[in-house]
């Protein structure tokens, strides 16, 4: 995969623009909590936002997560990346949140919804499309419209948790396949399957809500 351009939020922080990868490695396991917000704040925020669908709530969750991380700093085992560890804490915060709302959620509901290779919603038994994909309109004109981004975000929120999580990390935050496998404990084949499903679902959602 091609290296991603330097993320704009990093440009604000670094006078010299390092390639994203260098920054990720440099910041990856930094145990100074001050840098956590800078390095991982946006990622935690978007992860939470996709689950709770409320900006203020997602901001509060980032704060709660970082506070909890600071108190639990000593329990961080260096086997995982800081980001993975922070996401783990955020997942628990999300569960607490859903519990407060009276919804019973287990950690498994947020992370382990693996339907394997089942694509029956999209393909017939003979491997043909159930609904044939159409050509989408010109992306540039779609991207100009606020409504499109609202729908895009809603479609992302509508994905199964694991699909949303992997899609976010990979397509929006530009994580490499290698890091995704490591961070989410997935095999390369798992990642292909999850991404394929996520893309099929997103395309369908965009078609229904945007194109049609």
């Amino acid at each position: 995969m091609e290296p991603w351009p330097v993320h704009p939020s990093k440009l604000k922080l670094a006078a010299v623009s390092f390639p994203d990868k260098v920054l990720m490695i440099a910041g990856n396991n930094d145990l100074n909590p001050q840098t956590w917000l800078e390095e991982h704040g946006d990622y935690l925020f978007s992860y939470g936002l996709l689950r709770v669908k409320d900006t203020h709530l997602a901001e509060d969750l980032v704060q709660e997560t970082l506070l909890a991380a600071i108190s639990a700093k000593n329990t961080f085992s260096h086997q995982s990346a800081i980001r993975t560890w922070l996401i783990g804490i955020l997942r628990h915060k999300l569960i607490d949140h859903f519990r407060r709302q009276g919804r019973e959620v287990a950690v498994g509901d947020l992370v382990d919804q693996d339907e394997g290779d089942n694509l029956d919603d999209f393909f017939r038994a003979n491997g043909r499309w159930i609904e044939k994909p159409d050509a989408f309109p010109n992306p540039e004109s779609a991207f100009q419209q606020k409504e499109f981004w609202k729908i895009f975000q809603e479609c992302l929120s509508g994905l199964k948790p694991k699909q949303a999580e992997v899609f976010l990390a990979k397509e929006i935050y530009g994580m490499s396949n290698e890091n995704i496998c490591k961070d989410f404990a997935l095999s390369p084949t798992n990642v292909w399957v999850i991404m394929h499903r996520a893309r099929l679902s997103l395309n369908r959602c965009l078609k229904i809500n945007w194109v049609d």
Partner: protein
Amino acid sequence: MLNCKQASQLASRAMDEKLPLWKNIALKMHLILCRSCANFTWQLQFLRKASRRSKSNHSFLLTDEARQRITNTLKDNPAER
């Protein structure tokens, strides 16, 4: 010959890595003959562009105010010694 399910799997995988040569040829052959799968690959490009754009263009970033508020709270937090 690939069916559409297999072709769409390969098309998605091809977004992320270089396909083995023979798989790539099989996919290309399928795409020449199948309008639906060609449209699907076009949708995949659309999705990628949208994803990359959404990062800078859209509400996936903490606002400066939220960032400042969180920074202040973290500073005041007694757990940080």
